[in-house]
């Protein structure tokens, strides 16, 4: 049954693989191996996630009481700004693509590396340089504009460290452009013989679509940041109304990137979902081509809906109508995916190992996050809930619920491939459960708060909102435990976990046909693909070249 015959289990200490191919810090800092770079990203984004998480803890502690008594309002404003910047630009955007994508895409398409290995390393350096600038702005006084940098506040009124933080995002943006470029070229040029577009794993499709957004959208962010910079430094009058500028122009430019950016975050996680659900129900994803095309549809339509963040900004009623209807259209491909994943379970052979539990968690949270998007796209209701905690809850369900469930699920699934060792199943299941419960307790009350009218970015609030805020803070502490657990047991497993063998989940896909951890060049011989993706019922075994 298993296809793992080519690389019979041989202790990972004796065999040479990408982890022990070279030793020393230099061998990591100058590596061009996509797998090692993926690990560099893994450690860096874990650091930024922890930092962003720390800021989140401070926010939730402050909001335990209505009075705003833990810190000053300036500090609070800096804390939520940094929480947003760290989480969005330094964790969510690179999360799945830069770690799992970097590690897996070449292996999934039977390639030895990405098309531009040095560019890949340069991306990581840019990413870190961006992080250093952002951290510099924190330690030298912080920034209080919110991650959205709305003008004229950010250009004229804020006297905090806007420029270094914005510069950090600009630089990190280039890292994401390079990564996207690298993925696109790799998928076009480096597929193994026989691996046609419609045999690609859906994870590759999803990352390909996300890469298109990175390459097309991120330059707009760069231009926007440069304009903010020029305005702040030289008062050129693009956004400042006193100089004849238009503050709304900034919002258009900002959301033209930042709405598609939410799809940069979620699409790769959706790709992970397709892999997990098919592997743990031992079936090809229901309606493969619909799922593949829905990724591309989301990427394309995602560029057309930025105006739904601006329904009360003073844009014309007719523009608002167009943005509303397009927002509904872009919701449909997401719904299609959820239905397809659900249908994949039908007559499958479902096992409840940890990655699958994360997948179930993803489906639950993403469904709620997506459905509440319908409320926000509904013009008349959005007017009431926009800029309240309803929006905060909505985007956390999608981004924290959806993206991180996908990320953690994928990390567990491919952990044996990455490290060669199994994680402890009991602890891992517990963490999936704790994350799910903690998450809902944290963010569900925020929908209620939002409809009651509690505005976002409030440091103090009217007393009647307290009970719901306390629930949310309590949930956050549970959620925090849920996120810390994997940190400990995954690190533990790197040393003490049992050896995994090449394909512990008996999954399909080229990455499972090579040893765990893989050799530096991924495959002993270039594989030849003769089957569709997810060939759980193929008449013959997948041939391994050689």
């Amino acid at each position, binding site marked *: 049954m298993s296809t793992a015959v080519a690389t019979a289990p041989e202790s990972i200490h004796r065999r040479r693989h990408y982890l022990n191919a070279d030793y020393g810090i230099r061998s990591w800092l100058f590596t061009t191996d996509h797998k090692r770079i993926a690990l560099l990203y893994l450690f860096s984004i874990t650091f930024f996630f922890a930092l962003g998480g720390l800021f989140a803890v401070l926010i939730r502690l402050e909001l335990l009481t209505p009075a705003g008594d833990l810190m000053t309002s300036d500090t609070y404003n800096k804390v939520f700004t940094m929480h947003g910047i760290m989480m969005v630009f330094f964790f969510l955007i690179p999360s799945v693509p830069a770690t799992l994508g970097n590690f897996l895409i070449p292996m999934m398409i039977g390639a030895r590396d990405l098309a531009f290995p040095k560019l890949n390393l340069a991306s990581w350096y840019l990413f870190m340089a961006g992080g250093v600038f952002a951290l510099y702005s924190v330690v030298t006084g912080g920034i209080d504009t919110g991650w959205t940098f709305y003008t004229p506040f950010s250009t004229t009124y804020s006297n905090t460290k806007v420029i270094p933080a914005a510069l950090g995002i600009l630089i990190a943006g280039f890292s994401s452009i390079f990564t996207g470029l690298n993925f696109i070229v790799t998928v076009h040029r480096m597929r193994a013989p026989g691996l046609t577009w419609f045999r690609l794993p859906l994870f590759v499709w999803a990352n390909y679509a996300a890469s298109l957004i990175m390459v097309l959208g991120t330059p707009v962010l760069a231009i926007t940041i440069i304009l903010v910079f020029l305005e702040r430094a030289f008062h050129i009058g693009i956004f400042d109304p006193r100089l004849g500028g238009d503050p709304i122009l900034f919002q258009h430019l900002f959301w033209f990137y930042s709405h598609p950016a939410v799809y940069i975050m979620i699409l790769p996680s959706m790709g992970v979902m397709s892999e997990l659900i098919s592997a743990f129900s031992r079936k090809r994803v229901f309606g493969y081509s619909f799922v593949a095309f829905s990724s591309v549809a989301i990427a394309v339509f995602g560029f057309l809906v930025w105006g739904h963040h601006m329904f009360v900004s003073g844009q014309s009623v007719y523009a608002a*109508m167009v943005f509303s209807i397009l927002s509904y259209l872009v919701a449909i491909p997401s719904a*299609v995916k959820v239905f397809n994943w*659900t249908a994949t379970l039908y007559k*499958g052979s479902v096992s409840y190992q940890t990655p699958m539990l994360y997948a179930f968690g993803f489906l639950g949270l993403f469904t709620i996050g997506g459905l509440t998007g319908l409320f926000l796209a509904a013009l*008349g209701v959005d007017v009431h809930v926009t*800029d309240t905690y309803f929006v905060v809850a909505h985007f956390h369900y999608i981004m924290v619920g959806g993206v991180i469930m996908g990320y953690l699920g994928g990390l567990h699934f491919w952990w044996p491939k990455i490290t060669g060792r199994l994680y402890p199943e009991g602890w891992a299941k517990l963490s999936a459960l704790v994350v799910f419960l903690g998450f809902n307790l944290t963010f569900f009350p925020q929908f209620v708060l939002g409809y009651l009218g509690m505005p976002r970015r409030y*440091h103090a609030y009217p007393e009647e909102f307290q009970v719901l805020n306390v629930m949310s803070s309590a949930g956050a502490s549970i959620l925090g435990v849920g996120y810390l657990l994997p940190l400990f047991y995954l690190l533990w497993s790197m040393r003490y976990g049992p050896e995994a063998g090449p394909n512990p989940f008996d999954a399909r896909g080229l990455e499972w046909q090579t040893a765990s951890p893989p050799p530096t060049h991924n495959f002993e011989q270039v594989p030849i693909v003769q089957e569709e993706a997810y060939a759980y019922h193929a008449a013959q075994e997948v041939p391994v070249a050689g």
Partner: protein
Amino acid sequence: MGFDLPLFPDQASTMATRVDHLYFYLLAVSAFFTILITAMLIFFAIRYRRARHPNAVPIEGSTKLELAWTGIPLIIAMSMFVWAANIFFAMNRPPRGALEIYAVGKQWMWKFEHVGGQREINQLHVPVGRDVKLTMISQDVIHSMFFPAFRVKQDVLPNRYTTVWFHPTKIGTYHLFCAEYCGTKHSGMIGQVVVMEPAQYQAWLAGGAQGGSLVASGERLFRDLACDTCHRPDTGARGPDLAGLFGKPVRFAGGGSAVADETYIRESITNPAAKVVEGFQPIMPTFQGQVSEEGLLQLVAYIKSLQTQTPAAAPGAPPAAAAPPRGNP
């Protein structure tokens, strides 16, 4: 204090009921799909668990099903869109004859000025059962006027008037929030809207007027700033006569035209060179920085009032402000 767990906001305007009805529809649809998907997931996961169903049955997909679950959600989504757009249109069409109040947002307070000249800060008194329209502007950054109990909200921009309107239906005191992040004391930029019986409201108005009505203050300012040296009805005037200007189309020297609304009048005062009226020279100085936002509002109110004071107007024409601006919302 105590265990206070509200789950639903006060419903105190006509819009609140309309928005809530749609909200319940959205909730019902969401609940339906959440339950449907969760139930299917749980059912399949248990029914086809590996222990019971070790061999999966290969199923490729079904175009019929794909069409169904693309088409049905699409139809439901369109019903939401139409309903919601309808409400949104109503929100952006202030009814004629609404009670006009002016608001200025600044870091970090709300200032209101009633037509009679009564001013208040972070408090807004309005009568129950009447349409109320706020014309708003910011002195610095973007703010947002948010009345949860009325279910309306509108960003307040520097340099441009925006409007929001509501029809209070219940007497009481409700929150008024700034909903657009605006710096240090953003969360302190809150206040109350007090909905009163019309008679009480009249009494309140009578107690609060100082310094004359908005129009009177505007007229005084118009003279103090010496606007009237150029803007005169006589033939030697170097500037256009302002009587009857409001709400009329204006043609510009460089070509193009616009309807004279509040924002246009304000721009003509703060940045007169931007749009020079056809037939005049760009000689008007800017008053940017010399007039406060409140002063600008008074000037605007005065110029609007000239509508009914034109010599041609029949004596006894209704004193109400003429056509409310469509105010490109």
